[in-house]
């Protein structure tokens, strides 16, 4: 095995590893608002895990790019700028461009995540929602360009994980936020006495799908 083949293998391995870590990041991010992991852990623990997963998918994603750049076969077909500017490559423009675009979006989401305290809450929220688009683009990039997605073993796992994440994302869009009071209601636990739902920091209207508000209306 020559060095180029070795780099090619490492690029594929790190690409699949980054996809798995990104899936975990998306799942924990969805769980923060949809309470889908409420049975497992508190929101604080899920949030800590969601932020921690950046330490997993960012290095693996960077390794994916670096190992491709170290493969001379890839270097002969692609320029370094093709890893930053999407849809300019002379080879596999669409699948590679989708990967480049997702990389750009992920960089924006990650950087604004670290600068969250300096950004207006509403602006940060809309930028962070780009992560859904980025994850969809990563999947399409892997589907259209990935060397291993044609195998039944790999595609069975990745399609299943993508389907779960898609259903949770659609549920998040359709039903919005599931508050802590709501999850208590689902478990049929009493609300703590004298404890009102926390107001939104940006002072806006209650979020769409706030089950606590709906429960209050039902009790009236």
């Amino acid at each position, binding site marked *: 095995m020559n060095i180029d083949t070795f780099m090619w293998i490492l690029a594929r391995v790190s690409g*699949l590893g980054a996809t798995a870590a990104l899936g975990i990041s998306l799942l924990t991010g969805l769980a923060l608002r949809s309470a889908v992991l409420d049975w497992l852990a508190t929101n*604080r623990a899920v949030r*800590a895990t969601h932020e921690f997963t950046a330490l997993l998918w960012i290095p693996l994603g960077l390794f994916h790019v670096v190992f491709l750049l170290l493969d001379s076969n890839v270097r002969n077909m692609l320029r370094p700028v093709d890893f930053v500017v999407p849809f300019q490559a002379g080879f596999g423009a669409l699948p590679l461009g989708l990967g480049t675009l997702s990389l750009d979006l992920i960089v924006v989401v990650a950087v604004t995540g670290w600068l969250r305290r300096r950004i207006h809450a509403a602006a940060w929220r809309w930028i962070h929602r780009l992560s859904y688009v980025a994850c969809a683009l990563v999947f399409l990039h892997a589907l259209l360009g990935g060397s291993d997605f044609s195998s039944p073993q790999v595609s069975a796992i990745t399609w299943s994980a993508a389907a779960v994440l898609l259903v949770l994302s659609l549920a998040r869009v359709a039903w919005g936020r599931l508050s802590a009071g709501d999850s208590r209601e689902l478990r049929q636990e009493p609300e703590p006495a004298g404890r009102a739902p926390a107001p939104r920091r940006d002072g806006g209207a209650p979020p769409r799908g706030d089950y606590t508000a709906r429960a209050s209306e039902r009790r009236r």
Partner: protein
Amino acid sequence: MRGVPAWALKGGAVCLTVLATWASAGYIGGHVKDRSAPLRPSLHPETGQVTLGPAVRTTTSAPVTESNIS
């Protein structure tokens, strides 16, 4: 219910990522050259021969390089 602590969730995320990466390495190590990879160089589907344009002349010399499925 207090639930699973954050350190355990983080450990689980690390384990899942390592497991996925390790399994990927195992699979890719056994399938280095995939005939159905979408971005492989175009080859004749049955003979495995490169489709040459009219301006390219063939040779009987031994190959000095390899494609991803040769």
